[in-house]
């Protein structure tokens, strides 16, 4: 079996928090898209900052990493980079698998 880059190991005691966590991340994708369409870089920066903080706290390093790029893109006013980030984020959320330990 090959290592799945979308598999994330999460502490067992957080298991019941994860479904809500993912629902909020899906909503976040939609909010990011809306903010990008509106060119609202301040909101994009805040959303990226939040992703950066919450992602790795739960154990989802990739969420934090994408969040940082969104924040940086917002600061630079780089719509293209942010758009790429949002696509990558949506793709990641659709594939990520959680293993509890």
């Amino acid at each position, binding site marked *: 079996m090959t290592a799945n880059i979308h598999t994330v190991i999460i*502490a067992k*005691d*957080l298991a*019941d*928090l994860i*479904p*809500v*966590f993912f629902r*909020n991340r899906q909503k976040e994708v939609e909010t990011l898209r809306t903010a990008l369409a509106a060119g609202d870089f301040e909101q994009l920066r*805040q959303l990226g*900052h*939040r992703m*950066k*903080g*919450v*992602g*790795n*706290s*739960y154990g989802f390093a990739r969420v*934090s990493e994408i969040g940082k790029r969104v924040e940086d893109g917002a600061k630079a006013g780089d719509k293209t980079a942010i758009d790429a980030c949002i696509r990558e984020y949506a793709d990641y959320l659709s594939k990520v698998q959680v293993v509890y330990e």
Partner: protein
Amino acid sequence: MNDRAAADSAPDAQAAYRVLVVDDDPDMVAFLARLLKREGMSVETAVNGESALMQVMTAPPDLVLLDVMMPGTSGFDVCRQLKGDEATALIPIVLVTALEDSESRVRGIEAGADDFLSKPVRREELIARVKTLRRLHDTRKELESRRLAAEVQRKEAIRKAFSRYISPRLADRITEAAGEHGDPFQGRAQRTSVVALFADLRGFTRLTEKNEVGAVVAMLNEYFAVLTEAAYQHDGTIFNMAGDSLLVGFNVPFAQPDAAERAWHTALEMVARFGPVAASWRERHGLEVGVGIGMCAGEAIIGNVGSTHYASYTIIGNPVNTAARLMQMAAAGEVLVCGPLYERIRHLVPAARVATRGDVTLRGKSESIPVFAVRAGAHEHA
């Protein structure tokens, strides 16, 4: 959020340490709350600065875990407000900031934050920091409760020590004063206006001759009990109890503008209260006894006199010596009053009971003083 609510509402009755988690991200709040609850702490949450301030004011927690970046009132503002308020300044605040955000840390220090936690939050770091602050908090609480206990013990010791010599009301005042200004009896010898009252037992020598030691002590106790009661009734301070004589001071250690009146009423009360005791001794032992009293007003020195090993709160001066001489001259049931003091109480004394003794030269004194003799009796005690 039902699943979260169910998991996080685990019973934590024994968790005395209360943490308020403030973050506008509900996932972050849920995450931090979960970790803290696993450590047995009680957790409350707020999703913005305004509600955090409200919660702290209504139910102050033991620690606040505070996100910096929140819409509306920021974490810095919350921190500054809580640290600026005397009622909440001592509550530890941990600011949660981005790892690389050194500017936020500087602002946090300026706002009064006690510690910082980096986002993303590492479980071990969170627990270590909170536990450290908890230990500090517990130590501070323990020290505070020890200080309070020591304070209570000290006041109780002072109250007990002095309640043997002064009225319970005065003992309470001294205990209060001890908390505010230190020991009111310590190192403050001062000259002040006093009223001194000396009382002793006429017929005491016969009493000691006719009765066994045990009986004498019991009778003296009975005698001093009624005299002490009378002195305390009017907030007199007992300075000395020797043989069968008792020295009571007024206007000390606290000012009593009506000290003369208090002394007069005490004298009457002593004679009146001792009446039934004397009657019972007469019946049981065939003794003729009564209380003789001398009173005088004037300047005296008040303070602790003695050595480092033994000292007593003492009253020294002319009014004391004069009161002692007058007491020696007083017959049973008689109160001898020096002139200046008599002027202050004459409105209370029935004229028919007063006899002037003229100017009397007291033993050991070069100048004579006017003396008034008042026959005291239970029926005169208004």
